[in-house]
């Protein structure tokens, strides 16, 4: 396979896994903060929004400290399961997930808050448990906002550079994603490769935004 296609495939895999992770966590925390009443709620919201404003290199540094073999989580994973995330595509996916997370979390929270809590009470009065109410009432009414956020998160994860480079490095065919490959190509003076990669990335991002506009009209304005 040509390096262009393998880079492309790797980027899609990294961005896809990152989006899935950001989706699960974003929906979970979005619901918790929309419906939960507990001390420290505003602080938690602030912490969860931080990746949106912090430089990706700072996030990457935190992840390195946390996940490296000296880090408490990384050391534990290594000892218990033999899992090492640094310099792997899974590590790149994790880094992209952290950066993309607020893009799912924020719209998910807003979408859940827009669901009339009285509808959930009606579900309770009709004999349903909390999980059934979430799946049958809350989620169907909030899913467009969540979907819009998910597509933005995918585009963001696809273009992630700083945190990915810090955590996963730039190993061609293993951790070198599109945006990292573009940087390397320009540095190495491979203008043809850089042009192809830039064009592919741009087209992909346009496609994602068009899709978002089609599937969740009105949510991206």
């Amino acid at each position, binding site marked *: 396979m040509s390096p262009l296609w393998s880079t492309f495939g790797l980027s899609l895999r990294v961005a896809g896994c990152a989006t899935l992770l950001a989706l699960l966590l974003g929906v979970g925390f979005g619901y918790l903060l929309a419906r939960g009443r507990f001390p420290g709620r505003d602080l938690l919201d602030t912490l969860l929004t931080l990746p949106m404003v912090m430089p990706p290199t700072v996030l990457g540094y935190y992840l390195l400290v946390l996940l490296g073999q000296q880090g408490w989580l990384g050391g534990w994973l290594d000892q218990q399961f033999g899992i090492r995330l640094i310099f792997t595509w899974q590590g790149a996916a994790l880094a992209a997930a952290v950066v993309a997370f607020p893009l799912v979390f924020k719209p998910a929270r807003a979408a859940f808050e827009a669901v009339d809590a009285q509808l959930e009470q009606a579900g309770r*009065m*009709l004999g*349903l448990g909390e999980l*059934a109410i979430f799946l049958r009432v809350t989620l169907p009414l909030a899913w467009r906002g969540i979907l819009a956020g998910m597509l933005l998160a995918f585009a963001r994860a696809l273009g992630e550079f700083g945190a990915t480079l810090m955590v996963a490095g730039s190993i061609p065919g293993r951790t070198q994603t599109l945006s990292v490959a573009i940087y390397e190509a320009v540095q190495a003076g491979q203008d043809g490769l850089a042009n192809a990669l830039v064009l592919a990335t741009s087209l992909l991002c346009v496609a994602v935004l068009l899709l978002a506009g089609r599937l969740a009209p009105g949510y991206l304005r």
Partner: protein
Amino acid sequence: MNFEVAFHKTLPGAGRRFALQVGIRSDAARLVILGPSGAGKSLTLKAMAGLLRPDAGLVRLGGQTLFDSAANLDLAPRKRRLGYVFQDYALFPHLNVRQNIGFGLRRGWLNPHPRNEMDEVEYWLDCFRLRAVAGELPAHLSGGQRQRVALARALIARPRALLLDEPFAALDADLREHMRSELDALQRRLAIPLLLISHDARDAEVLGEQVLCMRDGVLAA
């Protein structure tokens, strides 16, 4: 005893606290609670339904104890088997009439099919003359149809009592009178204990076997 309710609840409010003090003992099959808005009628109804937890007291409806702080008993709303009609009906906006009516019959994580033909749903569609709009979403219904859907949805599970929160407030005057007599006939036919709260004395004239007045959070009978 159809209605045996005695509880108190203090709610923190903006500026001032609101104290709810309720005592009802009645064997009437049709009870109407009258009072100006802000008197605490809706909160009282919510406390009976289990959507608001009293500080202390007792709630017995239709001979069944649903809440008893002395015995540490607090049945979850979904286990109370009460029919509840919300003020603006709280119909599920993403489900058609058929799905709304059959919502409580279908357990589990999935909503009823848009073209389900459950026997009970068919019965209530005919009973409330809703067959022509069975496939419509609530947004496309008239006020009277919405109320019938809300009633059918609440009654289909054969609740031990029917609680109605200002059920006619959203209707225009002619329709209001018509729906009053419809509810009147329905209650006579089903012989189910009915508790209605309203600020309209006309509701009490038509539907009140016994009428109680609530003011500033205090209701005593």
